[in-house]
């Protein structure tokens, strides 16, 4: 298995507006909007680049160290 990035994107699903702006910018195609309700990041694909966090209009995505 490929080595994982040190950091990854974490979504506060309670305040996500499900607009899909993050999905649009993700270079890895790691983000989907789950049933029109909130964004979900595929942790295995996320490289922690932070483009989604920069784009998120509700600012509910943080790039954090992986546990």
């Amino acid at each position, binding site marked *: 298995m490929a080595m994982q990035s040190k950091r990854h994107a974490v979504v506060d699903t309670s305040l996500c507006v499900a*607009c*899909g702006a993050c999905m649009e910018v993700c270079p890895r195609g790691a983000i989907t909007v789950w049933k029109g309700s909130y964004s979900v990041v595929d942790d295995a694909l996320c490289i922690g680049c932070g483009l989604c966090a920069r784009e998120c209009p509700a600012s509910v995505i943080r790039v954090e160290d992986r546990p």
Partner: protein
Amino acid sequence: MKKSHWYNYLWIWAVVYFAMGFFNILFAWLGLIDFFLPLIFAVGFGNKGFCNRYCDRGQLLRALGSQKGFSRRKDAPDWMKSRAFRYGFLVFFLVMFMNMLYATYQVFAGASNLREVVTLFWTIHVPWEWAYHGGAAPWAAQFAFGLYSIMLTSAILGILTMLAYKPRSWCVYCPMGTMTQLICRAKAGTREEEKTS
């Protein structure tokens, strides 16, 4: 740079829509597409495919804010992102929409005359009589003026918050977005129950 998809060019529709309504207000009826499509996605398929890909407004704000770099990219204030504001704005928007339908009905019933104005921010009347050349019932024209007013007001709000905050800040408090997310969440909830029972 990611490659563009065809739907990234849907911002052109937003520009064409406002341009057509400037010359003939009856084209404003086409704005109903932006009301029905998101509801069809949400009610029919339980997703926000419209917001996520095909919203001309979202693509316009992305093109101007993200790609052209007109957005300051600051965090929107907390109140703007709060559920209270989002739901409150949805209710306000629906009330004003009903108000517009009532004005249409009044013209239909002959209780009031057609007002050839575009109303910005629900208060400012902008003369727009050059865009109506007859060719439709007065009530149909009244509805067109009303819908164009709503579309233009929300576009201006969207562009202002695009400049001040994130490119797609409008999406946070967009009434259609809030409504379709509520529908999707409700549908997702019931589907989860179906799965577990």
